[in-house]
């Protein structure tokens, strides 16, 4: 399977230029965790979509104006600040609006009980990281052989002992460990690239 992978750094560079689809690719990459976070913060699906859209637009404007300097902070942190602002604003609107019917906002959630910024940030970090790792794992899956991916998945994600994995996949234990090692190394690399911090990390 051909693997298309671009680092976030490249993607950001393309946002500056005339790549028409760069915006779309950027949105595809970062929308899911933002949406999830908005929902966790008690927004309805429609409100969450709005909040994400607001945030992305604000980001692109600021970015094109050169206000985002990735050496001064990670992309994730930058997006969080914009996102949280947007969610707060939606929540304020929500509180002023007359309640029509029990909606998602009545759902008992962590954040409806404790909506302070620190905890919200913590939750954002979790979602952001989960999305990063999941995306990188999906990429990794396309890059390595199915049996090596399986070896990595079983040993690392599911904590299955190497000997068992070896028996299951018909590999030597050493091959299992090798596969795990290479996959983790690559995953680290992909993670840096995904977060746009690969040069900073080096």
């Amino acid at each position: 399977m051909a693997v298309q992978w671009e680092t976030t750094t490249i993607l950001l560079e393309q946002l500056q230029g005339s790549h028409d689809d760069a915006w779309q690719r950027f949105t595809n990459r970062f929308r899911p965790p933002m949406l999830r976070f908005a929902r966790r913060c008690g927004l309805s699906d429609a409100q969450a979509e709005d909040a994400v859209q607001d945030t992305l637009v604000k980001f692109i404007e600021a970015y094109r104006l050169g206000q985002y300097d990735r050496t001064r902070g990670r992309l994730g942190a930058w997006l969080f600040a914009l996102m949280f602002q947007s969610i707060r604003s939606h929540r304020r609107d929500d509180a002023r609006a007359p309640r029509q019917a029990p909606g998602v906002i009545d759902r008992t959630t962590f954040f409806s009980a404790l909506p302070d910024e620190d905890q919200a940030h913590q939750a954002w970090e979790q979602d952001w990281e989960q999305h990063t790792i999941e995306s990188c794992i999906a990429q990794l899956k396309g890059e390595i052989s199915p049996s090596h991916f399986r070896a990595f998945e079983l040993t690392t994600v599911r904590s299955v002992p190497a000997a068992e994995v070896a028996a299951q996949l018909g590999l030597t234990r050493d091959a299992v460990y090798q596969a795990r090692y290479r996959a983790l190394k690559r995953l680290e690399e992909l993670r840096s690239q995904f977060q746009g911090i690969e040069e900073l990390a080096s």
Partner: protein
Amino acid sequence: MSEHARISELERLRGNEAGDPNDGERDLEEIRRHVESCSQCQAQLGELTKLDEFASHVREIASPARPIGDGTLQIPGYEISHEVHRGGQGIVYAATQQSTGRQVAIKVLLHGSLASQKQRLRFEREIDLASRINHPSVVSIIDRGQTPDDRGYLVMELVDGPTLDGYIADHNITTEQRLRLFLEIAHAVQAAHQRGVLHRDLKPGNIIVNQSGQPRVLDFGLAKDDLEESVTMVRTMAGEFMGTLAYASPEQLKGDPDAIDARTDIYSLGVLLYELLTGQLPHDMGGSIEGVIRRVLEQTPKRPSSINKRLDPDLDVVLLQALEHDPARRYQTADAFAEDVLAVIEHRPINARRASMVYQVRKFARRHRPAVALACVVLLGLVGTISALSVGIVQTNAANKRADQRRIAAELELDKQSKISSFFNDLLARVDPGQSGPDMRVLELLDVASGEIGERFDTYPDLRGQLQHTVGETYTRLGSYQPAEEQLLAAIDAMESQDPLPKGSLASALGVLAQVQTATTRLDDADITLDRAMKLAKLLDESDDQRTLLAQLLHQSGAQQYERGAFEESIAVYQQSLDSIDGLHEENEERIRAQALIGMGVSLKRLERFDEALNTYDKALEILTRVRAENHPDTLACLSNRAEILNDLGRTEEAESQLYDLLERRRHVFGPDHERVGITLNNLADSLRARGAFEEAAQLFDEAIAIFKLNPGDPSLRLAITMHNAGVMHLEQSQLQRALPMLQSAAEMSASLLPENHWIPAQFKVKWAECLLDQGDLVSAREMLTRSRPVLVAALGDTHRRVAHIDSLLERIEQ
């Protein structure tokens, strides 16, 4: 080894992998050696460790059981209010049971959906058991089930309060209050164990203290749904779960699921109490994961009272027993642990003394190796002796049903314990290099001990006898026969005054006395002593101890045969010993086997069966390397004998290099003037002589002779042997004036020390005669040769080259 370590081998080194012999992997030691010397493999190892943290992070995130936290959790019958805690195992929510309005905690397990059917059944069974634990300090399980997306959940009573560590941090409570808090936890654990439920993950975070100060233990039975998985989890997630790692037992860290039982929880309880009392964990949790694991597996924690000076020293003993590496040496039940903690609170004697003294010495030995390692071997011997006695006392106590008897016995025990304890502590203090300089040696320690035992234990002949026996035996092993005999005779005296007669101990002491008598060439006395020892030993019931004792006495018999020149008989006796020890306790069996092999080798050498002798020593050495310390006297003796054989086989260079090494080690262990150093000097000189390095040899002979002249008593036979060897060297160089007085003295000295017709003086006379012959004194030479011949024929057989040599000398005279 030049090949780099494979990753699977490195994982083994990190303790993550048991290894598979069918994979053609090298043994752990070999891998370790390679890695220590290979920077590339070290870097790879570092890389693997670095990746651990990332791997656990990935696992946490990518686990299929994760998708909680988006606010969609629904459990029928319960109204979830908020998330209380998120941990490695799952997420805890506060909720209301809709039918009753009761506040509950719901724990949704992260790993539930991964479990196989079998694992799930086992997990459910264990939860069922756990739900039946009825103890005020155990948080009870109300309900369990599966979420719609197939994750397991548990409903527990909601306990409000801080976790144990938080409680301690916020409350300024006394040591006694801490101990009492711990007692409740220990009782809760015992209640669970009685139901067959292990916790496997006891730590402060799993204990909540409620408003009235009562601890409540959480998560019984659900700690791990699969032991193997749990171990893997601790390992793979160690970066994240350092907290858990600190409370994990050595057997958990070793990844040995078969070894995990109730005593695993005892260990964790030990860590808990240690932390409660000192504010510190028993082991430093800093640095790399494998470093932490290694420390837990290898190191002994600091005495708690060295951290918190106000702690009762008995708590050191109690805690160090709970934290023993070997589960068999820990408290066997939580109740037994609690019982000793209560004893400390109530200022009663504790039951844990026995193991801890041995432990302290071991710990001490490890800290100060190698300077006082051997001294500690001696102390261990003493402590072993004391321990055996203490156990006897404790058991007797248990048997005493009547209260007054028990009180008297307890007082007696207390007195004995305190005497033992102070004696032991004083000795330990004296071998502490901090106090006595780095060179405190075993002999000095023994002198101190032997000077005090009689007085300190005058009212307890049982203790006195055993201690003097141990000291006497150690002196013997070190070749200090005079003080050895004094201590052994005193020990025998003390033992004979006891009723009933301690037959085993007495036989053993007599055996050692026979050894001293043999070494000091009183062979007839030795025969009588050994005969008595054998008879006593045969009266004992058959047991491992009895068989070990009999084997040791057989060795003594072999040694006596040897000294009489009955080499074939001696070999047969050692063979009898080897045949008799199969099936003994492994360590004993190995040691006895090594001793028998060494004894056999000595006789084989005399019979000039050098190849067989070398083979025998190699076998012995292989065992000794496994079961004895590097510089143990037995190991050094074996090396010394082996070097002699190498010389005999003409492998002089090899022999010399071993002897130089041995010389250094013996000087280090015994001190520069010890007779063993003299023996090595003599052997080395003899080897140099054989290859013609006469000058150097002469110098070493002189040094050896000077040492033997310093030591009174037995070494005069050593002196005779060394003078003989030096004389032979001069004879070979035709320096007759220098050779003659040495050969003459050697022959006369040995004749005065050994029985008539002993082969050594006979052999010495042959060389003396040879020297006389060279000087032209044919008459004296012929007379000496004629007298020596039948003695050597009897010992060595008439075809032996030494006999042939006599014949050739006689022929020369006749011509």
